[in-house]
């Protein structure tokens, strides 16, 4: 029980830090809350006085009542105005905070190491930034509106009550802690239930992300029923977890309300006794009774708030855990900017693996002189994609070093290193936006002519012009209705626009028909002129012209040389090359 408390405190401190920029509004909220409460509490006293002026038949002070009523009307107006301003101020705090938190979380996504992003289901991360942030903001909103007013009401009421009649006040004070006790008892029991609910929800979101995202595959394998069964299993667990969390936390209200009636009865009886003795007027008793209500109500609300805050805290914990995950090792302080690289790339005794227990690349060395065209071939899974991860510094090597222009990439800024490379991956990815925005991704100040020239060079211009709005056509999520090949053409145009000195082409042409490909090859050849290029391709025809062919297998380079040399050697490469004819 101690451990979670500690993390709660840490999360709470984190939340407070997030609210800091809005402390002016926080103070304003406090002031407004105090004013609202003071006026609200003053009102019953006046009501009581008015009732006291109407004792019985023929014993009513009309004039006194009328002057009281005028005063009360003014107070009502003021209270309403303060209430409104209070809500506005609270909204401002809560909504702005959640915006800040989302922005921070999103910014963190941009700097998290890829190993983290690769290891966490995207659905779960999305659920933290969207759903958890929402729940957290709602909890915060409720907390602000009610916690402050609650506490101030309690204190204010106590003050007024003791000034009216300390004996009855004492009765109230003695009975009410029961309410607090009940509330905190329930809250401490429900925290773990809310956490379980939150976790199960995350699990469900991850499953949904996967199954809804790949719904076409699910349907074509006729797996709807089976996937539904899996979903239902998680769904049922979520139902149970939610029921427990919601029911047990919702006991709080009736319980505190019961304590409320205890207080009410106690005040009623002791008040009535005092009234007999003349220690209090009937109006005073009426005032006390409404205080008794007002006094316990915030306890009810606070306990409701506590339940909500528990939930909000569990969500905040998850959001802040994301925000506080360490970013990739930052660029070294003295990291140099790689400007106008020549494109000499050297890998010296590089070793790397995703999982320390399963070595992947070991002791890999290669040297690519500026302007060289390096083709990487080899059976699938031989480590070609990993090589790209390392060249782009998506992952850092665990041994050896990679050098560009003779400088270790770890001494360069990532930004300058990465923009030095042009990359076309096998997984075509486009952002939701117009065709133009997609092409200009690497150069946002590109002119219209440059964009069209790049599209033409990638042979994308003609199909783009046939789209409903040409270059302004909006491409939806994940490329929308474009075909795989069209998406790839856009990815190529994207690189054509920047023309960085080093290129990485990962099976870039695998989904493009050969006629188009021929044109692209020509464009590529022009583009590769004087640029260091790494081409991962399975079409041997495209690698025949490479200056250097790296034949990879199981994470290491087993052969290197140009096409003629490798063929003559009669090794793995020649076997690979000949196989296409042997089988005919």
């Amino acid at each position: 029980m101690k451990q979670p408390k500690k993390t709660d405190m840490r999360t709470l401190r984190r939340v407070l830090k997030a609210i800091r920029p809005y402390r002016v509004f926080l103070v304003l909220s406090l002031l407004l809350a105090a004013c609202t409460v003071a006026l609200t509490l003053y009102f019953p006293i006046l009501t009581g006085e008015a009732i006291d002026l109407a004792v019985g038949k023929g014993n009513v002070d009309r004039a006194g009542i009328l002057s009281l009523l005028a005063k009360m009307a003014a107070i009502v107006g003021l209270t309403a105005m303060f209430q409104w301003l209070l809500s506005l101020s609270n909204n401002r705090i809560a909504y702005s905070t959640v915006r800040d938190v989302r922005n921070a979380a999103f910014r963190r996504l941009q700097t998290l190491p890829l190993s983290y992003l690769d290891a966490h289901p995207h659905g779960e991360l999305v659920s933290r930034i969207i759903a958890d942030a929402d729940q957290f903001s709602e909890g915060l909103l409720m907390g602000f509106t009610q916690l402050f007013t609650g506490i101030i009401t309690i204190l204010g009421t106590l003050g007024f009550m003791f000034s009216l009649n300390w004996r009855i006040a004492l009765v109230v004070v003695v009975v009410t802690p029961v309410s607090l006790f009940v509330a905190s008892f329930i809250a401490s029991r429900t925290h773990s239930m809310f956490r379980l609910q939150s976790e199960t929800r995350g699990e469900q979101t991850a499953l949904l992300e996967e199954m809804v995202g790949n719904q076409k595959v699910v349907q074509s394998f006729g797996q709807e029923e089976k996937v539904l069964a899996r979903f239902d299993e998680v769904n049922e667990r979520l139902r149970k977890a939610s029921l427990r969390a919601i029911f047990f936390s919702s006991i709080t209200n009736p319980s505190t309300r019961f304590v409320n009636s205890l207080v009410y009865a106690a005040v009623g009886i002791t008040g009535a006794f005092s009234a007999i003795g003349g220690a209090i007027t009937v109006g005073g008793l009426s005032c006390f009774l409404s205080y008794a209500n007002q006094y316990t109500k915030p306890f009810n609300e606070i306990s409701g708030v506590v339940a909500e805050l528990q939930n909000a805290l569990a969500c905040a914990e998850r959001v802040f855990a994301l925000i506080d995950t360490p970013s990739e090792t930052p660029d070294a302080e003295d990291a140099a900017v790689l400007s106008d690289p020549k494109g000499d790339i050297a890998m010296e005794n590089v070793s790397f693996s995703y999982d320390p227990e399963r070595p992947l690349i070991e002791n890999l060395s290669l040297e690519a002189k500026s302007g060289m065209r390096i083709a990487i071939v080899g059976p699938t899974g031989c480590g070609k994609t990993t090589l790209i991860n390392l060249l782009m510094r998506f992952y850092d090597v665990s041994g050896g070093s990679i050098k560009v222009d003779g400088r270790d990439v770890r001494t360069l800024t990532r930004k300058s290193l990465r923009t030095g490379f042009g990359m076309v991956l096998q997984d075509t990815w486009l952002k939701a936006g117009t065709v133009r925005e997609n092409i200009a991704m690497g150069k946002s100040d590109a002119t219209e002519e440059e964009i069209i020239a790049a599209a033409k060079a990638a042979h994308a211009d003609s199909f783009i012009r046939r789209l409903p709005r040409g270059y302004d056509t909006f491409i939806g999520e994940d490329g929308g209705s474009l075909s795989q090949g069209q998406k790839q053409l856009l990815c190529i145009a994207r690189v054509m626009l920047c023309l960085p000195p080093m290129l990485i082409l990962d099976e870039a042409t695998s989904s493009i028909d050969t006629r188009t490909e021929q044109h692209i090859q020509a464009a590529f050849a022009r583009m590769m002129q004087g640029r260091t290029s790494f081409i991962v391709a399975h079409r041997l025809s495209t690698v025949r012209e490479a200056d250097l062919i790296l034949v990879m297998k199981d994470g290491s380079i087993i052969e290197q040389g140009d096409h003629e040399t490798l063929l003559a050697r009669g090794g793995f490469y020649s076997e690979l090359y000949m196989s296409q004819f042997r089988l005919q």
Partner: protein
Amino acid sequence: MKKLLVYFKGYGRDAVLAPLFKLFEATLELFVPLVMAAVIDTGVAAGDKPYILKMGAVLLLLGALGLAAAITAQYFAARSAVGFAARLRHVLFRKIETLSFSELDTVGTATLLTRITSDVNQVQTGVNLALRLLLRSPFIVFGAMLMAFTVDAKCALIFAAVIPLLSLVVFFIMFATIPRYRKVQQNLDGVLGKTRETLTGVRVLRAFAREEDEAEEFAEKNENLLHMQRFVGRISALMNPLTYVIINLAVLALLANGSTAVDVGRITQGELMALVNYMLSILVELIKLANLIISITRALASAKRIGAVLELPEDNLAMAKAQGEASLPEGDAPAVAFRNVSLTYRGAGDASLENISFTVQKGQTVGIIGPTGSGKSSLVSLIGGFYEATEGSVSVMGRDVSLWDAAALRRLIGLVPQKAVLFKGTVRDNLLFGSEHASDAALWEALRAAQAEDFIRKKEGMLDAPVEQGGRNFSGGQKQRLTIARALVKQPPILILDDSASALDYATDAALRRSIREMPGSPTVFIVSQRTFSVLHADLILVMDDGKAVGAGTHSELLSACPVYREIYFSQFPEEAGKEGK
């Protein structure tokens, strides 16, 4: 919302009991001011202490009964709200599984995900609160008015005037906020979409050093959301102050009129106090009602969005409508036949396929080749009935696709899609996708045929080796081979490889096709490819260009008769072109 009510089935009893117990509790509460009035008018006036104690006991009893009733109500409310939400998620998910590919294309994943997660949550909260408070609050409001009438009809008229006025204010605010909450939700969708995008595109974004721009674009969407939220917040923040003013002015009116009534002896002092108490209890309830209405407004907006998904047209071949013929037709009908088939995607201007006709006998291999966007994938999607032909007919095993039971039809077909998709789990889980009962031996056989045996054997745990989400721990080529193996495990009579060997080298590709030919039951195979090498040996090669079949025949026939085919072939085998030239 109305349409969603059917999903309360099974929780109907709970959904009725919850408010009933709440009403019982509310009734008990309504007696409290009367008991207090009696304490003052009878107990205090006469100095009757035992009477006061007796009334005190009555108050406690009312409280205890109220507690029991309320807890019962909370339980029923929670159970039905949570149960309802769970069922909604189930129904939504099921619905998503019956959406046709065209619907999936147009609606998009992000939207579907928010609907099934945060929208359902909103509905759950709304239902839970509604069951607890929606009846209770108006009940107390009208109950208080009734009680006031029993005290003094003339003073009670103030209640009768105030209640409609309050309702007016409450409804006005509600109608002003509902559509705006919908806008808030739309903005939230945008924020969610951006988050997903940055996760899927992280490599490209970082390669272009776009991190800063992405964060700015996100911040902009986030800012729009904030503005919408604050705008709605400003309107709904009016609720409390307005109701407060109305109620308290009513209290003032009560005091003015009530004191006159006391003066003429129509009511007692205790009764005046009771009247004021009743008026104040209306305020307490209204504040609850106002908060409730905000939640319900959001819930209704969410419910509407959920309803919209449930109303999407279903794939008429999908699970929900599996009522066609399931048995395999007798006789020697061709495996697949297209008759004058055209296909235009919804929302698209031009046809993606035009007037395609061909026939494939059982056991034959069909190669489909052509440029990007020429309609190759569209063509094979029609075989499984994933899209519907706009014109003409497609028949499988001699039966029109629309007459087939969808599940039975898809059991016949092993489809390897262009995009290699693996699911989180183990290699075995993925292979069993589609054929739960296959033995390990069958799995290995499929892996061998798909040229995936080697690398799986090397994996720790082999068949039990974990597959991360999206198959991230496998390379592109490995993923392709695993998806091929997955389709082979089914031993489908019709196998469709939709450009799914593109990441394989020629040797692997060739070995793959050889082992497929040698598979038991000699399946009918469709190979969609960009490379002539992959389709050379097919019994029939369809050459697609711009949605039309510009050539059909064997390799040698096409080489002499189809210029498009010749061009493709010679671009890939320049040596052959050279020979031809000599």
